[in-house]
């Protein structure tokens, strides 16, 4: 009866679900959703980005329910997202209005407005900090108080308003980067209209920004390592910051931002990568053109945003026979819910299909026609 045993009954399923709950609770501790939201910021960011739903509270809840498994948490949040009606599309958000918290450029030693390091683990040594084992709320309060005093002391009485020009604008003004026509065509919403190939750039960017972080990084890495453009992209600017999201006043489109309804802010990571490429110039002359790849995702998610900028470039400039330049290859395989779903479906019973294969194999081996 071994093979039939895969058929569970309703009772067995109920017990399995109970068991899952027990595994989460067996150590007799529960983790507060608030604690996840504040203490697991990177995971919350990642899940919001992969689920393409900016909702910290819900992401933290999903992480709790998924016991910290990002694939499962993304799945929960996406499924919840499916039940939400799409009532509005936001107005155009200008990235120039970003409240910048971190902004670095690898292209220039110094840039107008300066390099702003912000919060990053890039400059730490990855040594396990055993002090964190003993971190108490008293410690935390004391450290925070000291931090705030320090900040107050250094803060100038009047905050100068610093203009942060975009690095790509500097390159454009020198004629190194092509000036592009502003394109405000409404993007095709891939959650409402299935993407078809060849895909529009808006569809590609949406799919990339929702991509599973590991998958996006792996393919972006493959591209620069040699299975693709084989050029070294330079990060013109990586920015982490908050941008305001507004919608048109529901009774009619409005002309100025002042009349728009402000919904709130989202924190994003934005990357402009520049990649030199050969091109045929006027009259077929060989020239070097500096081209752009763009990455943008919810939260602070720097590797993903950089890899996305590489893949955006790759898909804008296809090379035959290179999988990372093939939009169907990249876009159909990086989605967390799709990839993990199809892999996990292999756990479902397949005895009918398997028996069908078995029948074909036996028929062939018996030499029937």
């Amino acid at each position, binding site marked *: *009866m*071994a*093979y*039939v045993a*895969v*058929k*569970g*009954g*309703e009772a*067995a*399923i109920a017990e399995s679900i109970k068991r899952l709950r027990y595994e989460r609770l067996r150590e007799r501790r529960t983790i507060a959703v608030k604690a996840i939201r504040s203490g697991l910021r990177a995971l919350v960011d990642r899940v919001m980005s992969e689920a393409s739903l900016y909702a910290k509270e819900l992401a933290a809840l999903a992480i709790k329910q998924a016991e910290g498994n990002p694939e499962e948490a993304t*799945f929960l949040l*996406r*499924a919840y*997202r*499916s*039940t*939400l*009606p*799409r009532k509005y599309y936001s107005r155009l958000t200008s990235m120039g209005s970003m409240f910048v918290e971190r902004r670095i450029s690898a292209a220039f030693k110094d840039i107008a407005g300066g390099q702003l390091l912000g919060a990053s683990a890039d400059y730490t040594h990855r040594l396990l900090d055993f002090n964190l084992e003993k971190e108490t709320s008293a410690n935390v309060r004391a450290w925070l108080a000291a931090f705030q005093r320090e900040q107050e002391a250094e803060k100038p009485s009047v905050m100068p308003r610093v203009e942060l020009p975009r690095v790509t604008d500097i390159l454009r003004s020198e004629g190194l980067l092509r000036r592009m026509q502003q394109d405000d065509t409404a993007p095709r919403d*891939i*959650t*409402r*209209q*299935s*993407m*078809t*190939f*060849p895909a529009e750039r808006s569809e590609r960017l949406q799919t990339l920004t929702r991509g599973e972080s590991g998958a996006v990084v792996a393919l972006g890495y493959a591209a620069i390592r040699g299975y693709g453009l084989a050029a070294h992209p330079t990060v013109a600017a990586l920015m982490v910051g908050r941008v305001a999201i507004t919608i048109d006043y529901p009774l009619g489109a409005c002309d100025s931002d002042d009349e728009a309804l402000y919904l709130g802010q989202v924190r994003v990571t934005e990357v402009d990568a520049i990649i030199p490429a050969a091109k045929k110039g006027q009259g077929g002359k060989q020239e070097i053109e500096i081209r752009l790849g763009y990455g943008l995702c919810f939260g602070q998610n720097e590797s993903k945003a950089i890899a996305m900028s590489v893949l955006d470039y790759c898909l804008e400039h296809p090379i035959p026979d290179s999988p990372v330049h093939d939009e*169907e290859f990249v876009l*159909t395989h990086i989605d967390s*819910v*799709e990839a*993990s*779903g*199809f*892999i*996990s*479906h292999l756990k*479902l*019973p*397949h*005895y*009918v*299909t*398997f*028996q*069908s*294969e*078995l*029948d*074909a*194999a036996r*028929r*062939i081996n018996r*030499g*029937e*026609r």
Partner: protein
Amino acid sequence: MNKYNFAFFDEQSKREIRRALLKAVAIPGYQVPFASREMPIARGWGTGGLQVMLAIVGKKDVIKVIDQGSDDSVNAVSIRKFIQQMTGVLETAETSEASIVQSRHRVPEVPLTGEQILILQVPIPEPLRETEQSELRAKRLHAEKEYSGVWLSLFEQIMKYGCTATGADHPTMVHERYVMSPSPIPRYDNRRLNDCAALILFGAGREKKIYALPPYTKVESLAFVDRPFVSESMHGKICRLCGAEGVFLDESVQAAGAGPFYECNDTGYCRQRQSSKSRLDRGEQSGD
């Protein structure tokens, strides 16, 4: 659960899936792209079928959900429970009582009627995928009705093995126009799609495609004129529970040396036969 709308989706989403369904019915066998939603069950676990179900189910419907022929399979239970939670509709294991049947990889043994709808879950809707990986190029081949690749792969199987080697999901020609994946139903079920009285809807969630067979559509399994299409051989095999012959049977392996035994794959059908076994014993035994 009252946090969710009837049948889970917002009404806008349902309408959109219904539009795709209408188009699919209008062009039998043609794959209509739709904006497949993420569902509370995993991609690859029947989300396409489930979305079709949720888009068409009404309060008076009676549903049956089977997975590889079984009503009790874990995934069938899970999907049925979910639909039930989100709609409150009645459920049944008896095919004849159901108004909508959602199935993975089987067509129920009891012949479907014009009052019923069968929804099949589809993992890979593109029958040309094996010979043409690119969706764009495959779409072009469909448009031009250029199916040499599929035929050639069947021909090569015959050259290599002496006969076609397809297991489940043997490609079909629909209404003499589109080559269609029947979903991984056994070859035994292919002929039961042909001229079927019920509307058959196919949903592929991960691949974001919907297609359909309106009632009484001509569905032919691809086969060369001198190599007729062959179903799985059920010859001489009898269900040990209900004694059925000529139906699709599951083969089960016993301890070494004992040889395999067989049971109806369609568990609902088998149970029904068992409960009326005495009547059947008196009358003539018939397969289907």
